[in-house]
């Protein structure tokens, strides 16, 4: 009910705001620039790094972008298809079947994922499932590495991924895409855009269905259950008057998936997600832009299981609201630099099964950033953001970035910034007792009420962490990120960049046992403990050998370790044993492998080619991951080199497309050609995928 009232308030305020602006539409022409692909690649303009339009090659922070051309060349259908091929980005399977992305060695919950500059929500278990995002209507994907909380606040520790949806080109255009392939997977998309130079409309719908797959035939469960999902997006942009532009967009996502828990328990899981954004921007004076943006999103997930006789066994619901009005002011001038400032409020609410109450967060914030070309050769971006929070200590996140042009072929860049992530609702308000094993998990804020209740009911044997330890609030996880890079430009189309990074994270939140129960199980809760660092090198080499052949290579070297674990190894406090029949031995400092699911070496190589004579284009791509561990397998709770690791592997993908006249395009491809799988461990690798695609578009 609360949600409805928020929606009505939202629309009421939208109405007031709209009335405040002069609503007479004017027929002012907007300048349309030709969106040629080569121009795109030569001079890519990105918005995510500074929240202003900047030429990517001139930015002082490590920034990358994936153009639509590449999305089409590899026939990608989901965001994960694209991200897993980028240097240093690893898609990681979540136990819920979703897939997140690891960036600079930081887990997926530490990367902010946005669509058109506003965040996606729905991290029911920490990971945001990126396979839920269709790439059908995407203009480009922008990736900013390194902590970016100075602009974006919460979650932007490892970096930012911003998905920029397409803006209509002049005229009325219709487009249909279909891709069908292995596992009975069908992806159908339809898009209509209308840009009459006064206003712009676009409508996009997508349906994706798949039988899923089963990597382990021996058990009763499928690795990924059959699913069907729908995405619909509507976007409108128009001028309210000669100074004011309005943009409204709405997105809806729905997924229905089978859910089987055992041979006797089966049911379904449902996801419904809504996003709406209203953006008004006006230029009251020369150099000045004013923007009001109001974003509201709701993510609902429910899972139900039924007994064989049809009676309900369990039902769990997740319903999250997120709403954020923001006011932005921008001053752009060639002489005195670009200033951007923002003022906003984030409201969040979550209703969830097994939760202690219905928590709400209020978090007002303000940020300011200054970006200037200090000298001809030195660009400086300095910014800071201050976040207040109804449940945590306030956060101050400064950032400084500089780029220096050494010669016309070499430039140096460096950035230093803070990032933070506030504890999520689960870490604070979870109140869950496992019905089969009998253990209990309590959110940090639920402990002081629920633990005494459990004690009173006689369920607690003894308390190992006294309640006094829960008086101070759980602290946000914080990071300090340093990036230093060199860009080489050997020729206009031959580029090489190297970036060294280091992220120091403190107050990482982990679980610990706080009490023992009379049933022999434990009560767990969350606490700030770990100090972790990730450091390494990422490098990309790109060469366009001729207009129809582009070659690229990327590599990342990564070390990601827990500082306390490192200390335990250094002190000789960690032991190992090869098997129950062999003796225990003391592990050495260099036996420690670090955090789970981190490969020391990852690499990729890609060739994109055009065959103009046959109207064809295509690609050959390979990605490599060196060995990594997913969990401790020898009982000492640390990942060491005697653990059972996932062996190094490589994945190769091919695609080939052909244009048939100006309206049709057909394509085919094979993903994971070598059919690499690791059943039971890498659940997001289904094996070889063969597909064919068809596109129809009006000119």
């Amino acid at each position, binding site marked *: 009910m609360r949600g409805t009232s928020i929606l009505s308030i939202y629309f009421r305020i939208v109405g007031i705001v709209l009335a405040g602006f002069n609503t007479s539409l004017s027929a002012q022409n907007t300048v349309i620039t030709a969106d040629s692909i080569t121009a795109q690649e030569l001079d890519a303009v990105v918005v995510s790094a500074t929240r202003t339009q900047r030429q990517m090659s001139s930015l002082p922070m490590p920034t990358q972008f994936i153009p639509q051309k590449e999305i089409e060349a590899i026939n990608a259908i989901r965001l994960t298809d694209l991200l897993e091929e980028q240097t240093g980005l690893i898609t990681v399977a979540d136990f819920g079947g979703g897939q997140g992305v690891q960036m600079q060695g930081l887990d997926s919950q530490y990367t902010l994922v946005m669509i058109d500059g506003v965040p996606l929500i729905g991290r029911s278990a920490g990971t945001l499932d990126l396979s839920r995002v269709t790439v059908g209507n995407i203009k480009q994907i922008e990736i900013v590495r390194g902590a970016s909380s100075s602009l974006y606040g919460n979650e932007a520790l490892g970096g930012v991924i911003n998905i920029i949806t397409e803006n209509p080109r002049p005229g009325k255009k219709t487009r249909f895409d279909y891709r069908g392939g292995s596992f009975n997977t069908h992806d159908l998309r339809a898009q209509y855009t209308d840009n009459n130079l006064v206003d712009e409309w676009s409508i996009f719908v997508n349906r994706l269905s798949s039988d899923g797959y089963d990597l382990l035939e021996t058990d009763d469960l499928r690795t990924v259950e059959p699913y069907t999902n729908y995405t619909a997006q509507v976007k409108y942009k128009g001028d309210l008057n000669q100074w004011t532009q309005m943009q409204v967009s709405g997105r809806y996502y729905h997924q229905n998936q089978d859910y089987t828990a055992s041979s006797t328990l089966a049911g379904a899981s449902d996801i419904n997600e809504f996003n709406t954004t209203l953006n008004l921007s006006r230029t009251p004076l020369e150099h000045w832009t004013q923007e009001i943006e109001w974003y509201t999103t709701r993510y609902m997930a429910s899972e139900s299981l039924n007994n064989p006789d049809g009676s309900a066994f369990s039902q769990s619901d997740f319903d999250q609201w997120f709403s954020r009005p923001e006011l932005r002011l921008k001053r752009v001038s060639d002489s005195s630099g670009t200033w951007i400032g923002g003022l906003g409020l984030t409201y969040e609410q979550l209703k969830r099964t097994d939760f202690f109450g219905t928590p709400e967060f209020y978090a007002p914030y303000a940020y300011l950033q200054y970006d200037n070309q200090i000298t001809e050769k030195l660009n400086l971006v300095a910014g800071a953001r201050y976040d207040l929070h109804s449940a945590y200590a306030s956060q101050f996140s400064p950032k400084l970035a500089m780029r220096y042009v050494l010669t016309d072929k070499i430039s140096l860049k460096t950035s230093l910034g803070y990032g933070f992530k506030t504890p999520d609702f689960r870490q604070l308000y979870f109140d869950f007792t496992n019905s089969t094993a009998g253990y209990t998990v309590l959110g940090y804020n639920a402990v002081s009420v629920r633990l005494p209740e459990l004690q009173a009911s006689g369920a607690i044997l003894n308390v190992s962490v006294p309640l006094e330890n829960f008086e101070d609030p759980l602290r946000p996880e914080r990071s300090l990120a340093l990036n230093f890079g060199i860009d080489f430009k050997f020729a206009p189309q031959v580029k090489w960049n190297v970036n060294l990074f280091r992220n120091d994270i403190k107050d990482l939140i982990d679980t610990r046992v706080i009490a023992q129960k009379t049933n022999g199980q434990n009560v767990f809760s969350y606490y700030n403990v770990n100090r972790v660092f990730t450091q390494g090198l990422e490098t990309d080499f790109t060469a366009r050998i001729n207009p129809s052949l582009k070659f690229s290579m990327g590599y990342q070297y990564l070390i990601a370790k827990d500082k306390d674990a490192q200390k335990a190894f250094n002190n000789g406090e960690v032991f190992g044993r090869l098997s129950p029949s062999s003796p225990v031995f003391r592990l050495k400092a260099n036996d420690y492998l670090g955090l789970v699911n981190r490969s020391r070496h990852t690499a990729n190589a890609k060739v994109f080619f055009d065959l103009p004579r046959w109207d064809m284009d295509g690609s050959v791509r390979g990605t490599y991951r060196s060995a990594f561990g997913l969990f401790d*397998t020898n009982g000492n709770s640390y990942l060491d080199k005697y653990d059972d690791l996932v062996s190094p592997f490589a994945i190769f993908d091919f695609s080939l497309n052909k244009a048939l006249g100006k309206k049709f395009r057909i394509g085919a491809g094979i993903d994971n050609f070598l059919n690499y799988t690791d059943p039971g461990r890498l659940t997001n690798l289904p094996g070889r995928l063969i597909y064919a695609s068809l596109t129809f578009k009006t000119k």
Partner: protein
Amino acid sequence: MKKQVLLTLGMIGIFTITSCSKEDSNPPEDNQNDSILVSNLHAPQETDYTQNPPAASGAFVKFDFSGGAITTSDTDWDIAFRGTSIIVNGGSSSGIVDAPERTGNAGAYIVDGIFDEISSINTGAFAQDGPGGLAIPTGSGNGWYNYDPNLLAIYPIPGKVIVIRTADNKFAKVEILSYYKDAPAVINEQIALNDLRYYTFNYVYQDDAAASGF
């Protein structure tokens, strides 16, 4: 005699060579210990899932170090096993149901180290069972095991040595090697599900109550 010495030296030589030629990932072999191995001590437990939270119950399996075997005696036992819980015959009830009455003066503490190298006994460190918890704490990472939620498996933590004062004030040190039947080197899902609650452990018994070490 000389021949024997030569043979021994030769054996050591071969052993050293094979050790050296082994890959870096193989730890040094240790073949010296006078410990006694107990295999497949079955410690079943019943769990009533109809209750929320589920309740564990069932008789504990008692072990006596001086006899070196399991026992049904009500008094002549030192430690007792049920599921992952290990109780000592000393102190008072911790509240666990079906636990035998403690009649002796047993105690225990856990020390980190290599089993053979643990030679001293810290008589001030012994704890006994009581309402505040067990002398050998339960729970993943607290006592002798880690729980792998992925495989639902129990792994004894390498380097955890349980030093015990027996019910009659003698001593023992114990190293738990496996929680699964026949101590398999690799635990898979089938083993984790079906072959659990079979203890394999090493112990050294010190029958001198005045001793300060093993």
